[in-house]
């Protein structure tokens, strides 16, 4: 077998194992969480008998191991269970929310990833001169401010003072793409500002690292202009670390948007999760956790595989 196939297969298998481990952790974590969902549902109407009945009905009296495997079995078949609080199918409600979150993440990524790499290249080209310092300064400032703060600042200036975009990012299926984009403009800006610095600095560091190599000197001694050297000789060798940091940030865009979604009242996964944590709705929390874990592991798996494929020694063995 080609060594690359073997390596990739190994990574995929490891990813599956990791996901399994994550499911155990999520289940264990939610099981030891304080609070009682039966108590929550019944509220004022809770009598000892009512509580006992509801617990039995929800299967809360079974041993944890039994509950874990029945949950896992369901997940494997695409059944994430039903929400305890409203009795709706989780997979169905989650589907809408997930696609909203992905929609937001997609546009944020589409802007931030090329921008970060471009700024990184620019910073290398003008290393230690004012463009480099300006780029570093601005991106470091935006990553240092909490994202809800950036959110409110942008709402104040862009939405309230200038009135360009809406401050609330509520979208639904009846809206056209243009309307949707208009609605998410400010959250996309916030997310972009948050993830930009990390990716840009990593791009800069990875390329500067490669720029120390003897083959960059060879290119310089061929009379090649600097930008062309960066593009043709440095960038291809810096892909692996750049892809790694890009993937971590993409994962963040999906998994870490909770705060931004709450600030803008955006109907995504994050909001959904926060709502149901408050209601002690364990199956929903578990389902969200599992999907977040899957996204995270999946994107990092992609980064790993790209790193393997980007290595000419592995791609073209002797």
């Amino acid at each position, binding site marked *: 077998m080609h060594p690359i196939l073997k390596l990739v297969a190994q990574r995929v298998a490891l990813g599956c194992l990791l996901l399994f481990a994550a499911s155990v952790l999520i289940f264990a974590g939610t099981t030891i969480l304080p609070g009682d969902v039966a108590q929550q549902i019944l509220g004022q109407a809770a009598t000892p008998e009512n509580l006992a009945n509801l617990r039995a009905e929800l299967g809360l009296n079974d041993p944890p191991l039994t509950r874990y495997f029945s949950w896992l079995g369901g997940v494997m078949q695409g059944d994430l269970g039903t929400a305890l609080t409203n009795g709706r199918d989780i997979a169905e409600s989650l589907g809408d929310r997930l696609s909203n979150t992905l929609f937001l993440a997609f546009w944020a990524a589409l802007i931030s990833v090329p921008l970060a790499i471009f700024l990184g290249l620019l910073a290398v080209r003008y290393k230690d001169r004012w463009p480099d310092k300006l780029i570093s300064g601005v991106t470091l400032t935006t990553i240092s401010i909490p994202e809800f703060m950036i959110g409110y600042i942008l709402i104040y200036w862009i939405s309230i003072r200038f009135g360009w975009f809406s401050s609330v990012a509520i979208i639904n299926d009846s809206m056209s793409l243009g309307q949707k984009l208009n609605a998410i403009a400010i959250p996309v800006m916030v997310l972009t500002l948050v993830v930009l610095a990390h990716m840009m600095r990593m791009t800069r560091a990875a390329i500067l690292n490669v720029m120390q190599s003897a083959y960059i000197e060879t290119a310089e001694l061929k009379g*090649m202009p600097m930008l062309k050297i960066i593009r043709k000789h440095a960038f291809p060798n810096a892909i692996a670390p750049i892809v790694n940091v890009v993937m971590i940030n993409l994962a963040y865009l999906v998994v870490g948007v909770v705060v931004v979604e709450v600030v803008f009242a955006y109907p995504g996964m994050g909001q959904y999760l926060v709502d149901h944590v408050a209601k002690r709705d364990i199956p929903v929390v578990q389902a969200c956790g599992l999907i977040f874990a899957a996204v995270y592991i999946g994107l990092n798996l992609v980064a790993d595989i790209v790193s393997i494929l980007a290595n000419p020694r592995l791609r*073209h063995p002797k």
Partner: protein
Amino acid sequence: MTDPLLKVRGLKIGATIYPPGEKSRDIEIVHGVDFDLEKGKVLGLIGESGAGKSTIGLASMAYGRGGVELTGGSVEVNGRDILKSGIRDIRRLRGAEVTYVSQSAAASFNPAKKIMEQVIEAAVLQGKFARREAEDRAVELFRKLGLPDPENIGQRYPHQVSGGQLQRCMTALALCPQPDLVVFDEPTTALDVTTQIDVLAAIKEAIRDTGVAALYITHDLAVVAQVSDHIMVLRMGEMVEYGTVDQIINAPQAEYTQALVSVRSIKHIEKQPTGTPMLKVEGITARYSGTDFDVLRNINVEMYPGQTLAVVGESGSGKSTLARVITGLLPPSAGSITFDGRTLTSNLAQRPRDDLRELQMIYQMADTAMNPRQTVGTIIGRPLEFYFGLKGAEKQRRIQELLDEIELGEGFQDRYPAELSGGQKQRVCIARALAAKPKLIICDEVTSALDPLVADGILKLLLNLQKIEDVAYLFITHDLATVKAIADSIAVMYMGEVVRYGPKSQVLSPPFDDYTDLLLSSVPEMKLGWLEEVIEHRKMESAGN
């Protein structure tokens, strides 16, 4: 008379250095150098590291490596002073009129691109040839340089060809744009001697056939004598002597040049084995975990107290692995090692402290073998504490004794490794090994990172210490001149086996086996026409077979 191709006048080169803990300051590393190079001629630049030879070579492309700056004088290429040119004009010069071959082709090729793409890049970029033409030219050069499968080797990636082949590809890269001048910067230094001779012959032939002029930079006078018309000897940024190859080799004027020519003239008469063997290596076979071939196969050697066994071979022959097996770092899969009458366990962790003490090591890179944050005193004092429990004044006294033995005086105790020269660092490593009062020191290529004159000093020191301390050396090296200087007995290794073993006089006298013959005849000799003689001799031999 026509103008020379390269005319250098009063060239001054400076650099900014950043000494640890001090303010950065500017220093001058080349102090005004003049020379001319006619079209089609080869000038050898020779000197120790730090002499400024690479810096001068790169100055002919108006390039300063790292923080190096060309601060004064003029460098005229084809009549234009390139130090006064703008960056655009300089870019048009680089890769078109002047090209460069570096010491390490392995590092100078981009690992992510095919060889062909990189070989033709400058020629196409500079508009010298169209892509197709450049490719045809590259194939022609590959053929001329004796590369296997010249039609297709360009489609490979750098890691898919050997070091010697890559060095030839680099030469093709430099010749492809049809330059007027090629700067060869130690192009064969990183290669094994048997590879070096082929690359050297290929480079020489290519220079002759294309009529290109060249600056040939090296620290090895014997090598430069084979390819140059003239030689310039440099020392600490100044020209020491300039002359024809014949004059420099056979009638050197400057004292320094005379020292360079007579380097490696240590006469060491082998000692006869006395008493019982101290170290017996019997039937050692070893492999690294995760691999499926033996790097050592059935090794048998013996060592006597106070004597030197030189293990000689090229990279990959297994000589360093043998050292790892003896020290216990790599347990062998078969065979045994007897040291001083007792069998050494193959597992390092189970060796008693006395076994560890009596068997010390010195490494090639003195730099990385010392903790940069410890002073020389601490480094040498550590084995004294560890093995003998010495403390306080007694320890200080012993450290000073050791420093005296390695010919470093007072005041070195408080210095850090970064404040020492390469030769001094290696001396400290020797003192650290001696501090343990060992019976055997394994020296792994201890002189190969050093300049010839410095290396000579280290070898003399080692021989001297052997007399005083009666310590035995297992001396691992690829350099036959070093072997001649220090060995009592020799083991020649080739692909994991000892192919020739015995007292020095016997190993180095004919009749030879094929490999030893190849190895010995590949070592450059300091005489004119040596390269042609060897190549001619080999051609005749292969025709005879």
